[in-house]
Structure formats: structure tokens, C-alpha cells
């Protein structure tokens, strides 16, 4: 559980002292399962700050909306900090005009897992200090284990701590087990080619091309996405299998060396489509083949941005 008072105090200080023009965080949602991203411009507004395990968006996605000259403060958990680093590396915002309030993260709750147990009509959700979550729903009261509600990306997170924040508020957490991050990829790879394909096809076919995944992702900031191109026509824009599959294949691929495994894409999807099994495969390949981890700093170029004669690969010579 986070020290909300300390977070507020720091956010207020930044605004009062003019260190930043705006602090990005969260505020209470109008519905119990969804705190909303919030943009505080005055110390007074910071009183609305809310920060808990239901805050399910990667705030770094908002960074590319603002002019690079704007001084922005942001509350960042592990993955968000790494996304910011990746964005800074790509020149999307100068590090000097960012102030990162780092918050070690115990994981984001997937609201779907609450609803699965309590039914849709949730009245309130309260995080307790003993790692349980008290939910009042129309169907009754429930005390649920927080660990069982975590979004899968969080359950296998390796880097819960902010890596390059200007200040860290909260106790640092132990790093996650890399084997855990590998597990999903390894298990999927164990399936036969046809089984993997069937899974991929089954997930992709629910897609309605709303692009919630793209908009929720901090690294998807292209003014013109590849799906908007008519010439060349990379991907069909409709819900044909070619279109839906092409969309998922390529969006994930464009994240190679850029994805911080935050899972915001899956959480945003209205059709509950799984897609991290694609990005995690690519992230795993980057680790294994190139010893590269996204966002640990804002200066190491990702593998696709570097070229060397020494690559070992399965080429026919």
C-alpha cells in the first residue's frame, strides 16, 4: 500500500516550487473499479490524488501528448519508469524536463478478476493492509487475496521498482524472478505449432479494431499508424482474419526492444484479448539473443537500432 500523504506532499512541492508545470497521477474514478488518470496543475488539485492497485493505466502513454518544452512530473511504478526511459531514448521528451516520482509497485489488479468472483455490480473496492481486498458488490461482501487478482503481467513482473526516478517514495521491493517472466513464453513454446496457432487465431478473432491496446500503450505514439496506410496497404482495416491477425502480429512486433511488459494493452482491451504472449516472446528473445532489457536506462540503444557484424544467427551462407 502506498504512502499517499507522502506522494501528495511531493507532488504539491513540485508544483509550488515550479519544478514542473503539471503532475500526472490518478484520481478517484466515477465507478469503483476504475481510478482515472489525472493531470494536476495546482497544489490544490493534488488533494484529489489517489494511488492504489486499481490504477491500471500506464501513465507514460500521456507523455507524448504534451509539448517537449513542458515540465512534467509523473508518478511512476516500475514499468512506467522503464516506459519513460524508452520514450526518452526515442527523443519523445527530454529527461531534464521530467520529474519522476518513483513508486515501488506490488502489482495492478485486473478488474476482470474481481468481477469474475463478485459479478458485475461492484459497489466498492478497498485494499487492506494484510494483502487482501474487500469488495462490496450487489451479490454480497467478499474478501479476496490480492495476489489472486493481479493482472498476469504484474504477477510475473521482474522490475517492480522505479529504475531512474528523481525520488522514490515507498520501500523498495525485491526484484522478481526472471524465471517467472520466462515461464509464460516457455510454456507457450512447449505447445505444438498448431496449438500455438489455434490459440493465436482464437484470441485475434475477437478483435474489433478499436485500438484501445494501441492507445493505452506508451510506445505507440505514431501520428500515423501502419494501419492507416493505404499505400502500401500493410494490413486490412476490418475484422477479417487477415486484418485482425495482421494487426496483432505487427503491433506487437513494433514493440520489439521497446515493450516494458506493463500489460496495459491487455487491460484496455474490451474483448479481453490476450496479447502479452506475443510481446513477451519478443522481450524474451531480446534478453536471450542480445542481453537487452527495455528501459533500464535511457541511453542503451535497443537491438533493432544497432548493427554489428558479430551477430550469430541461422543464416545460410
Amino acid at each position, binding site marked *: 500500500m502506498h504512502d499517499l500523504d507522502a506522494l501528495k506532499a511531493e507532488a504539491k512541492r513540485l508544483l509550488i516550487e515550479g519544478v514542473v508545470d503539471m503532475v500526472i497521477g490518478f484520481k478517484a474514478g466515477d465507478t469503483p473499479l476504475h481510478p482515472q488518470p489525472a493531470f494536476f496543475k495546482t497544489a490544490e488539485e493534488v488533494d484529489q490524488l489517489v494511488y492504489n492497485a486499481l490504477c491500471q493505466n500506464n501513465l507514460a502513454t500521456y507523455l507524448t501528448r504534451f509539448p517537449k518544452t513542458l515540465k512534467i512530473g509523473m508518478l511512476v511504478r516500475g514499468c512506467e519508469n522503464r516506459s519513460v526511459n524508452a520514450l526518452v531514448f526515442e527523443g519523445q521528451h527530454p529527461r531534464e524536463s521530467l520529474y519522476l516520482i518513483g513508486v515501488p509497485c506490488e502489482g495492478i489488479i485486473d478488474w476482470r478478476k474481481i468481477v469474475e468472483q463478485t459479478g458485475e455490480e461492484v459497489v466498492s473496492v478497498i485494499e487492506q493492509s494484510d494483502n487482501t481486498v474487500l469488495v462490496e458488490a450487489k451479490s454480497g461482501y467478499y474478501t479476496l487475496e490480492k495476489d489472486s487478482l493481479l493482472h498476469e503481467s504484474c504477477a510475473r513482473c521482474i522490475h517492480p521498482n522505479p529504475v531512474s526516478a528523481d525520488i522514490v517514495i515507498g520501500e523498495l521491493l525485491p526484484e522478481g524472478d526472471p524465471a517467472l517472466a520466462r515461464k509464460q513464453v516457455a510454456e507457450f513454446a512447449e505447445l505444438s505449432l498448431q496449438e500455438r496457432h489455434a490459440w493465436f487465431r482464437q484470441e485475434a478473432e475477437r478483435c474489433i479494431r478499436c485500438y484501445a491496446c494501441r492507445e493505452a500503450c506508451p510506445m505507440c505514439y505514431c501520428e500515423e499508424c501502419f494501419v492507416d496506410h493505404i499505400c502500401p496497404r500493410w494490413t486490412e482495416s*476490418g475484422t477479417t482474419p487477415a486484418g485482425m491477425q495482421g494487426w496483432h502480429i505487427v503491433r506487437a512486433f513494433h514493440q520489439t526492444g521497446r515493450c516494458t511488459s506493463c500489460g496495459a494493452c491487455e487491460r484496455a482491451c*474490451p*474483448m479481453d484479448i490476450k496479447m502479452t504472449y506475443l510481446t513477451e516472446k519478443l522481450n524474451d528473445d531480446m534478453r536471450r539473443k542480445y542481453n537487452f532489457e527495455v528501459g533500464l536506462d535511457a541511453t542503451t540503444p535497443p537491438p533493432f537500432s544497432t548493427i554489428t557484424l558479430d551477430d550469430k544467427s541461422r543464416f545460410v551462407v
Partner: protein
Amino acid sequence: MNLILKKDQLNHLLDAWRKDYEVYAPQSLQNYTHFLPLQDGFELAFDKAHNTRIPPKALFLPTSEALLKFTKFGGYEKVPLETAPRIIFGIRPCDAHAMTMLDTVFEQERYTDPHWQARRDATVLVGLGCHVPCHIGFCTTVGSGPFNHAGLDAILTDLGEIFLVETLTEKGERLFTQLETASEEQSIQASKLQQDAAASMPIAFETEGLKEKLDQNFDSPYWEEVSRSCLGCGVCTFLCPTCFCFDIVDEAQRGERVRNWDTCMFRTYSLEASGHNPRPSRVERTRQRLNHKYSYWVDQINQIGCTGCGRCVRYCPVGLDIRAMLRKAHQLPSEVAHV
């Protein structure tokens, strides 16, 4: 005409319908429910979720549909219209009401969309009223209701062991010829339940004077504030039963002219060939969404263009709540000085 359908007879009735119609009803798909055609051994999923994720408009305006197939050398053929008889069972009144609004778009005097019309003519809508209305829906606020009849050919009221069936059109009547007439008591019981259900729903925002407030505040800084966290995805519009916008594109590689769902929330929606975009940022686009639903639709058909199904509230990835946005909009000043 009021009839009684015993709950243990329901599946039998659906199977009887299946002989002459393709019957769609909410069934389980992954975490949610979806209108799927009934197959042998079907399982209805009304208990799993109050309403389907995707509204039944998708059965009339598919997410993608081919309109023409063409060859490189100029030949083309139209895709045949779908006229197979269908029944949509268990559609909620909010969604059915929305269908009548979409009819005003697709079936106009000057031009009627033949694909839409063919599907509409071939389909019977049998509604299931909400005897326990959902929390997030706000149908009564916007002129609809948990037992609203608009758009329905028949409506069912859940009375515990039985459904009371009210047939509303000839199309609906034809489906229920084998049922017993309801007693006076049962009709009264249903009527009371329906009124109580509607009365139990709190008013989500004031609609009196709302349109005027929106019109007067077109240039208000409020829109910048309310659109800040909006991601600009298409979830609210695609899941909305009254949204209908589409894009037609030629997929040259497969030789089809395709109509796809489109949304005013995308930058490319209003992007013109010259490069000019009359709605260049999320501010204009979010403003457009609220204005279209709660002001421009009123201009067009004298009804609010929203039936309060609540999907946009439930599934917005950043938790934006249109009810709250409108409550705040209503508090904006009546006259805004134009700068």
C-alpha cells in the same frame, strides 16, 4: 396480448423456433456474453452478465462486411443481401430502443441501406426486460427504461418461475401462438414489477436544459479538461448501441469493397485529403462525441441519442464516465463569452 411462458419450457420453445429461424441469444464467450446462433446443446448465459459486451447492432451492421467483390479488370459483383429469417432472443430494451434510432439513419426516405433493411426485415426482436436493472445503466435518465417497448416485437418479464410475454407486433405474435393467456393477476404483477424496476433507477444526470448547455458551451475550456485522459480509442463508440459510423475501403489485394466500423474518436475519422483536420485533437473529438449524442441527435430526431446501456462507462480503459461528464457539463454557465 399477455401470455405465460414457463421457464422450463423456454429451451423447448427456442428449439421449436430454430426449425424456421436462426435464433440468436446471449451465450458465454470467454469472460463475457455474446449474441451467438443457438446450436444443439446450447446454454443461455443470462446469469453471466447483464448484457452482452458487443451490442446486437453488430448483427445488422457487422464490424466488417464486404459490399462488392471486384476483379482487377473492372468486373464486380454485389454481395448478396442477407435475408435468412432470424430471431434475436433476450435483447435488452436499451439495445432494442437503440435499433429504432439506427433505423432513422439507415432507412431514410431518400435512401435506404439495403443491407441494413434486409437484415431488419428478416429479424424478430424478442426482448428480456430488466426486472433487476443494472447499476451502471441509466436508461430511465435518457428517455428509455428497463421495460421500454421501442423496437421490440415482444418483451418478456421475469416473474420468478415464469415469464410474462407481451407481444407487441404481428411479427412477435407469430412466435408465441402456443402459449396460454396470462391471468389478470399475473399481468398486474408484471406491470408493478416493471414500474418498480424503472422507479428504482436513480437519475444519473439532469437532461432538462442539457442540450442548451452543451450548445452554449461549445468553446468552453471544459472540453480540454474532460478530454485530457481520453485515450482516443474506439471502445465507447464501438460498444455503443446507437453509434453507426462506418468507413468504406477498397481492399485491393483481396478484391473487395468493405464497410468497417469507424469512430469519430480516431484522428483519421475527420482527416481530409488535403491534410486539414476539422477535429485536430482529442478536445474536439471528445466534444463531438458528447454533442452528437446529447445535442445533435436531439436536433435530428428529437430524442437523446443514447439509451443508457452503460457499456461506455463499464469498458472505458481509463474509467471515463459519461454520466459524470454530463453532470459537470450541466453546471457550466449559460452564457459563455466568446474570446
